[in-house]
Structure formats: structure tokens, C-alpha cells
């Protein structure tokens, strides 16, 4: 092999090109983020930017990005830069661009009022062209020209106002209308994703390295948008709910902290309507379900993985538990209503709700505990057996401690699900729409001893009790009226409280898991 044909390990003659391509990647990211914030409604799509509307500014940015992406491809094609493109952009990119351009063609002809046949024809023509433009030229042209052209098209339609903030279009055949303030951010998101990928490929000099960089940018943008949706959701609920949550909140005074929303009920005499009964109901409900499901679930998991012979029986139990976990919650609710309620005083009660949710939690605790126990290395069991330690002692002092982090993960996931359940509570636990503070369950304080069986009774467990998700549902169906001053604010405060309660349960679970992991692996 002669030295001349070797590719240098270090390429140092592409700095300007790399800088421009890197800037294009960055600008695509900026366009993506702005599009996302606009889609979430955090900025208006016609807010002025540098003297023009945001929509027009984004159009210009997309136009520039599209043109530069095409430029990168050409610069590489005609040898102005040292890149390592492969013979073709590949079948995945070709099919993707075919679909994109086919859809663009169909949508554009539809907007122009062409019939179904014409739409199909134009879509097919554009899709076919995109396929040819992607698949047949060398990679540097194939992965930039269709992408750049798409961005140019999107940019032009925003610049010229073809799609503008005030734009709207009724979809024939559907009872729906598309509005500009949704379509403009969507177009920007989409086009910036495509230019980001394409510019990243150019930045990496195409070839294997370019594909690597392109995939990175694509994945980061998508992950970023998922995180943005999550954060946006929490921020939205928080923004709506904070006024209600802090209604009447004060520091100092008679108590150290006065937080009426969390500490008072919604009775007629309450100064500030609060969610105390439902909050306490939810906490007791989750505590009761966990108390029921964790010992039984972990016990069953120990039996299935340590004692039972692996075979048909354990297989059948596994199928049954998986089926139970996917059973809709309303079915559990019906079971609770038909089976538990007649056995607990024939009325909706806290304990019926606890057990119903416990039944729902049980399969997940069982599945995850079983996985966690099976994941404990057999070396620990061998070592313990070789020391003459009995099986149960081994399970108790070696296997279960090593499985605790996994079990905790299962409980966290399960609690996240059951804490927000509405349907089973609706059927088994009930409670008022706007319960007064006196309706709050006082479980610890109402244990009564008696001389006749069952010797211990707890009337509080047998009373209908409200819980946060149920109260929210009941408020919405009751039409947000009643004796409270600001029902909207109250309901959003309630929703935020529910979110915080679930997050608090998560935090407790994650802290537990972290503690035990640390203990196992210092």
C-alpha cells in the first residue's frame, strides 16, 4: 500500500468549513428549542423579533440553514473540502425522505384544492424524486440536497406568509381545523430536526463519522424535546396551581406556618377552602395498599424463585401476574365494589379502597421482586450454603438484602400508578366532593378495643373517605361550583397537590433505594 492513498489520521484543513457546519448545527438546535417553546405556548408565534414577527424570523433562519446545508453538500461534492462520503446516503435515509417529500407533495396539492387523484400523483412524483435524489448521488449530495430543499421550502412558506400566525385551515372530512400557531412551530420543529441532522453529517465529514455525529444530534434533539414536554407539563400545572396552593399561606402568626389549603377542609365554616381530608385520604390509601401488597408480593416472589420448582406452575403464575398487572383499573374497582364492600359494612370505605389498590399493586411488586431475587448472584447462595447456613436464613440475610433496591424500584413504580387512580376509588371509597375537615380519616386515633370478637375495631377505616384524584374528578363532574370562592383556582391547587404527593412518594422510594444500594456497594 502506498503512502499517498492513505487518509491522514488528523485532518487540519477543514477548520472554516467545520466552524460553519458547527454553527449550522447550533442554529438548528436554537430553531428547534424556539419551535418547542412556541408549541408549548411559552412564547407567541407572532411576538416581534428584530422588527418582524417570530414566524418570519424563523422562516428566514430556516431558509439560510437550508441553503447552507445544500452548500455543504456541494462543497464536498466538488472537492473544496476533504470529506469521506460513502457512495450512497443509504436506504433508511432514502425511504425517510421519500415519505417526507411524499407527504409534503400531498399536503401542498391538497392546500391548492387538487382532488384526491392529483394529491396522490403529486405526492408520488415528489416522493420518487426525493428517493432518487437521496439514493443515487454520492452520500454528501444525497443527504444534504433533499434536506436543504425541504428547509428552503419551509423557510419560504413562513417568510412569504403562506403559513402565518393567523392562518387556519379546516380539514375536509374531519371535524377539525388547523391553526397557524400550532402549524408554524410544528413546521419549524420538523425542518430544524432535518437540517440539524444534515448539518451534523456535514460537520463530521460524512461517512461513518458523519453518520455518527448526525445520529447524536438527532437523538439529543429528541431526548431534549421529551424532557421539555415533561418539564413543560409540570411547569404548566405548577403555574396554574400555585395561587390555589398558597391561598392564605403565611409564615409566623399563631402557628409557625399557616397553610390553610393543606390543613383545612372545604366545609362551610372553613375560612379558606382546603384539601386536608382528601390529602390525608390519599396518604392513608397508599400506605394501606403498600402495607398489604409489599409483604404478600415479596413473600410470593421468594416462594416462586427460591422454593418452587421452576416449571409449569411458576410459568402459569407468571402469566397470571402479568395479566393482572395489565388489567384495567376499573375492573379492579368493580371487583372491590362487588366483593369487598359487602364484607366491610356494605358501604364504600377506606379499607375497601386500600385493599383494592393493594390488589392492583400486588402483581407489579411480585414481578419486580421476582426479577430482583433472580438477579442476586448464585455465588452468594452457594457461599452461604457451604457455611452450613439454612435456606431460609440465607434468603433472609443474603438474598433479600441484595434484592431490596430492585424491590423498591417496583414499589416506586406501583405507587406512582395507584396514587393517581380514580376509577377504583370512585367505586370503593367514595367520599364527598367538598369534604369538611371533620371528614378527614383519623385512622390512628380511632382504634377501639372491645371485649367481643373481633376485639379491635376502627370506625375510621369503615367510612367513606375522599382522595385527591377522586375529589378532582368529582369537582370537575360537579361543574366546579359550590360554596368555595374560586373553584378554578381550588381545582388547580388540588391537581398540583396530587402531583406533589406522588412526587413525594417517588422521592421517598428513590431515597430508600439509594440508601440500600450504597449499603450494598459502599
Amino acid at each position, binding site marked *: 500500500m502506498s503512502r499517498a492513498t492513505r487518509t491522514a489520521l488528523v485532518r487540519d484543513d477543514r477548520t472554516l468549513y467545520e466552524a460553519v457546519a458547527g454553527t449550522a448545527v447550533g442554529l438548528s438546535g436554537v430553531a428547534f428549542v424556539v419551535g418547542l417553546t412556541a408549541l408549548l405556548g411559552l412564547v407567541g408565534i407572532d411576538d416581534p423579533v428584530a422588527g418582524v414577527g417570530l414566524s418570519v424570523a424563523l422562516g428566514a433562519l430556516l431558509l439560510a440553514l437550508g441553503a447552507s446545508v445544500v452548500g455543504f453538500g456541494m462543497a464536498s461534492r466538488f472537492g473544496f473540502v476533504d470529506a469521506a462520503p460513502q457512495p450512497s446516503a443509504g436506504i433508511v435515509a432514502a425511504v425517510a425522505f421519500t415519505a417526507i417529500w411524499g407527504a409534503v407533495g400531498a399536503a401542498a396539492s391538497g392546500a391548492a384544492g387538487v382532488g384526491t387523484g392529483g394529491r396522490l400523483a403529486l405526492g408520488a412524483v415528489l416522493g420518487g424524486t426525493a428517493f432518487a435524489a437521496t439514493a443515487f448521488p454520492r452520500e454528501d449530495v444525497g443527504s444534504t440536497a433533499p434536506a436543504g430543499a425541504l428547509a428552503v421550502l419551509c423557510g419560504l412558506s413562513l417568510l412569504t406568509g403562506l403559513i402565518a400566525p393567523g392562518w387556519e385551515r379546516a380539514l375536509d372530512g374531519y371535524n377539525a381545523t388547523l391553526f397557524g400557531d400550532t402549524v408554524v412551530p410544528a413546521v419549524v420543529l420538523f425542518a430544524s430536526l432535518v437540517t440539524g441532522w444534515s448539518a451534523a453529517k456535514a460537520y463530521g465529514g460524512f461517512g461513518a463519522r458523519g453518520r455518527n455525529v448526525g445520529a447524536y444530534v438527532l437523538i439529543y434533539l429528541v431526548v431534549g424535546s421529551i424532557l421539555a414536554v415533561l418539564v413543560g407539563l409540570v411547569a404548566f400545572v405548577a403555574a396554574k396551581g400555585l395561587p390555589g396552593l398558597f391561598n392564605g399561606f403565611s409564615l409566623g402568626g399563631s402557628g409557625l406556618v399557616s397553610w390553610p389549603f393543606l390543613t383545612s377542609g372545604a366545609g362551610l365554616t372553613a375560612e379558606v377552602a382546603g384539601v386536608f381530608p382528601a390529602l390525608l385520604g390519599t396518604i392513608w390509601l397508599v400506605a394501606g395498599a403498600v402495607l398489604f401488597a409489599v409483604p404478600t408480593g415479596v413473600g410470593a416472589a421468594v416462594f416462586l424463585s427460591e422454593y418452587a420448582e421452576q416449571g409449569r406452575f411458576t410459568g402459569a403464575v407468571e402469566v397470571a401476574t402479568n395479566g393482572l398487572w395489565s388489567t384495567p383499573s376499573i375492573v379492579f374497582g368493580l371487583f372491590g365494589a362487588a366483593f369487598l364492600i359487602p364484607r366491610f359494612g356494605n358501604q364504600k370505605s377506606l379499607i375497601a379502597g386500600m385493599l383494592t389498590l393493594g390488589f392492583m399493586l400486588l402483581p407489579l411488586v411480585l414481578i419486580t421482586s421476582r426479577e430482583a431475587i433472580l438477579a442476586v*448472584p448464585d*455465588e*452468594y447462595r*452457594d*457461599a*452461604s*450454603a*457451604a*457455611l*452450613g*447456613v*439454612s435456606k431460609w*436464613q440465607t434468603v433472609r*440475610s*443474603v438474598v433479600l*438484602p*441484595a434484592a431490596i433496591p430492585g424491590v423498591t424500584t417496583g414499589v416506586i413504580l406501583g405507587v406512582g400508578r395507584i396514587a393517581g387512580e380514580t376509577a377504583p376509588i370512585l367505586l370503593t371509597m367514595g367520599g364527598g366532593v367538598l369534604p369538611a375537615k371533620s371528614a378527614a380519616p383519623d385512622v390512628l386515633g380511632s382504634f377501639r378495643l372491645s371485649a367481643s370478637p373481633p376485639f379491635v375495631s376502627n370506625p375510621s377505616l369503615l367510612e367513606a373517605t375522599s382522595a385527591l384524584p377522586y375529589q378532582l374528578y368529582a369537582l370537575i363532574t360537579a361543574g366546579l361550583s359550590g360554596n368555595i370562592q374560586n373553584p378554578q383556582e381550588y381545582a388547580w391547587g388540588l391537581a398540583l397537590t396530587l402531583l406533589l404527593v406522588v412526587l413525594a412518594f417517588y422521592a421517598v422510594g428513590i431515597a430508600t433505594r439509594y440508601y440500600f444500594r450504597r*449499603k*450494598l*456497594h*459502599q
Partner: protein
Amino acid sequence: MSQTDAAEPVANRTDGQGVSTTAGETVEETRPEWTSYEAGGETKFAVDDLDVHYGDDHALKGVSMDIPERSVTALIGPSGCGKSTFLRCLNRMNDRIRAASVDGTVELDGEDVYQDGVDLVELRKRVGMVFQSPNPFPKSIRENVSYGPRKHGDIETGLLARLTGRAEPDREEALVERSLERAALWEEVSDRLDDNALGLSGGQQQRLCIARCLAVDPEVILMDEPASALDPIATSKIEDLIEDLAQDYTVVVVTHSMQQAARVSDQTAVFLTGGELVEYDDTEKIFENPESQRVEDYISGKFG
């Protein structure tokens, strides 16, 4: 299998093996006198006509050997020759494999460990085991060492014991220190007994496993390739330890390394492919002047 017909099958077995061939190749006869070696001292383990099947697989074929106490017995041979299987019969760890079936007798101080009604807890307290890869529990060094005695109720710790005044922290301390000293690990870990054992190096972990085994106060220590996962320095420490332990304990060690067997053991048993014991004698005799041609080939590296 009863004792009375033990002599007959030995003769039959050797006859049978002279005729039958495994996988078409001619296998040299295993003569009974090569394996009927009598070591000096008291016999700790007397194994007679031991057969082990894993399902259809005949893993160990009629092995008989006596293991003398307070010495190091090495079991060597190629992979799959049944030496680990043999070792695991001595403390009945093979019971943990469902498909395994064992015939023959294994006598520990004259008592058959495979007879009905044997207390596995007692057996394994008397016959400890150290495994191929170090397997300390994910607990502190102290808890690892005192694990066996605590679970056997020999040492009481824990909240209830403390509340009722039955806790014996001094005795636990002394036991931990003694066991770690004996395993030549005390000086390296005495200042961090509460650290997690998984933070130790591989060699230290293996010595911790030996200390954990010693804490139960066994009479026999079985070691299944105890140094195969360790670097040369850690290996030499383990080898020194094995020689040292043989003053007080009966040590049976399975190893792949013939140098290791030659260095540490007093007598060596050679198992060859097919699960048969081919020769058992003084280590020196095995490595310098073996009776069997197959053993000589294996030792000199021509086979195996």
C-alpha cells in the same frame, strides 16, 4: 451401596475399562494399585466406589481414595475430568444440583455423609468450602467473617441480643480478629472492618472468604481452584496460606495448575477425561515418576 460388594465392582470395573473405549480411542487400563495409595496419618475422608451422574452424563466413575488429615491433597486433571464434582461430593454441595445422583460412600471420620438423616448444616460446618471466584457477601468485612457463627447462633448480635444483654461484642471481635489473622488478612484490613467487602482486591476477597470459612471452625477446607482468578502475587499468598493451614486443617484443593499442586500439596490425585481417578500418590512420586503413561503424558504436557 453396601460395603460387602465393594471389592467385586473394583475388579469388574478395571476389567470393563480395559475392554471398553471412550469415543473410539483406546484408553489405557487404570490399575487399582495406582490409586490404592496409603498416606501416613489418620484418614479423614474415606471415599469408596463413588459414582456421580448428571442426568445421562457419567461424571465420576467408581472413585475410591483415602484423604489423610492435616495435610494438603491436590486434585489435578484437565477440564471436565470430574475433580470439582469429586470435591463437591465431600460436603454434599452436589445436592444443590437437581440432576445430580450420587452412588457410593463418602466417610468422614468413619461416618457416611450420604446416609439418611445426615444433618447438612453440621456436615458443612465441619467441611468448609472456598470457591473459584471470590464471593464475599455485599456486607462489611466484619459481617462477612462473623456471618456463619451468627447464623448458627454461636454469636448473638443484633438489637434483641443487645436489649436482653446477651450480645457478646468482645467475643465477636475476638473471633473476627482470630479468623482474619489465620487467613493472613488482619494487618491489611484491621482499620476498616466496617467497610464493604466488595471494596477489597480480588486476592484480599479470596482470603476474606477463607477467613469466613475458618470462623465456623471447620475440620476440613475444600478449595475449588482458589487462585485461578487471581494474579501471581495474590496466588502466592494463597499458596503460602494453604501450606500454613494444613498444620491444623485437612485441606483438599482442586487446581488446574500443576506447579501449584507440586508446590503446596503432600499427595496428589490425577483425574483424567471420563471422570476416572487414574493415579493417587505422594506428590513427589506423581510429578517425578508416575506409574501411568497417561499421567506422565499429562504432567509433561503431551495430553490434556
